[in-house]
């Protein structure tokens, strides 16, 4: 890729409609894509959404960010904007009110993306499965890649889940490239 960029480096201005211009542009975009893909694996950003959990799983997820568990050593940081996020952490059951919010957040994230569901509630509805306002697990609304069991899931398990999610992320990225 580098070679093409070097070789086709325009000496004089190319016409935007010319083939050479398009070639250079493609090469440059490819290079940037490659860079971003690498950066996203080395430093994935998390988005945490509490979807009707009892707070137990939430505070364990937050505890992962603190000095004792320190998920940042994997280059992971917590962001508030779905458009910046690579991994979506969902805790808690889905109910009739927040399923739209969850779907929207998922749709706003850039591809490829990974969803990690945390806790018994996010897996199947857990103890609240029989409640009248509960739809069920997160997989009823969006596709889930990694399930972290427990009520609440322990920070160690959550970190493990995120790392597993990262592996899936790499696979998905490869799959996307092959598909291109």
């Amino acid at each position: 890729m580098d070679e093409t960029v070097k070789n086709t480096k325009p000496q004089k201005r190319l016409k935007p409609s010319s083939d050479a211009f398009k070639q250079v542009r493609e090469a440059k975009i490819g290079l940037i894509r490659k860079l971003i893909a690498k950066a996203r694996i080395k430093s994935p950003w998390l988005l945490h959404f509490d979807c009707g959990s009892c707070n137990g799983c939430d505070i364990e997820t937050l505890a992962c960010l603190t000095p004792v568990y320190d998920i940042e050593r994997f280059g992971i940081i917590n962001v508030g904007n779905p458009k910046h996020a690579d991994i979506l952490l969902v805790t808690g059951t889905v109910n009739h009110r927040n399923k739209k919010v969850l779907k929207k957040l998922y749709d706003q994230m850039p591809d490829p993306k990974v969803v990690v569901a945390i806790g018994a509630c996010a897996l199947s509805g857990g103890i609240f499965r029989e409640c009248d306002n509960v739809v069920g697990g997160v997989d009823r609304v969006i596709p889930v890649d990694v399930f972290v069991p427990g009520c609440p899931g322990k920070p160690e398990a959550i970190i493990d889940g995120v790392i597993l999610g990262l592996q899936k992320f790499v696979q998905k990225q490869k799959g996307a490239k092959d598909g291109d």
Partner: protein
Amino acid sequence: MVSTVIPFGPQHPVLPEPVHFKLKIEDEKVVDAIPAVGFVHRGLECLVAKKDFVQMTQVVERVCGICSAMHGMCYCMGIEEMMGIEIPKKAAFLRTVWTELHRIHSHLLWFGLYADAFGFESLFMQFWKIREKIMDINEATAGSRVIISVNVIGGVKRDISPEHRQWILSTLDEVEEALRDLEKVVYEDYTIRKRTVGIGVLSKEKAYELGASGPMARGSGIDIDARSLGYAAFPDLDWEPIVEYGGDCFARAKVRFREMLQSIGLVRQAFQKMPRDEEIAVKVTGRPEGEVITRVEQPRGECLYYLKGNGSKNLDRCRIRTPSFANFPPIMSMLIGCRLADVPVIILSMDPCISCTER
């Protein structure tokens, strides 16, 4: 003037929980705040029809993960009262120990989020680092970090061994020392004072009128604490409700800080005065019948349970009124007229627990 409507939440980095406010602002001032709730509503109270009264203990513990031990205790106290059970003295002391530990961890958690609300990231980390010590105690004594299912109807499930007791006391010493180090930061730091002193003022009359509870009420000078009702082992312990008079965010933070230190003292006292006998639970026979109301003091304020039994294994009704619900009207009144930048700090100063409020 043109007014703009800014949505706050439901997915917001300051609050881990989904709550949605529509803030109507003019210039920099908030002129109206409309809350939209229901994102966490699960319909938990209807589970009484499907689970029996013993299983319900585990369900009510999951009303809110942060104060799970208190919810479990309140529910068990209600059923015990209905069935006329007297729990062993030691069980009452053990319940006190666990609930006070919960209070410490809840306040530490709150301090972390609070520091995060005004961008003091390193303080957030400090408080959460201390909090992990309390979580270790929970894990070692009850087997789980957050939801510690120690309460059962008729007493508690586990005892705390003498070795654990020693270790807990020395850990609490470390926690206290760490807190004393941070005391100066919380009370005197320029940034913190700038962002909290005089912000979100709730006068004593207003707090009383709007029915504030817990640290919200005590921060405004109302001496109210459900622990003085004398449940569990509190009648045997020496303590007094902590009251501050400022009524602003700073006063509420101060109340919580002093409460943490007080809770450490209460745990120490409870260990000292705990009877040495072996019995920690009594056997329960029969089914609950009748109506009962119980109240306990949670980290966020007073929690009320109304239980109605009909002599069968399922209860008729289990109604929960949580402190955050009581604290919503005062918060709404405080938001009106404040600056937009202060909104996260004011909302956090109430310590909102949405999963409690909506259940």
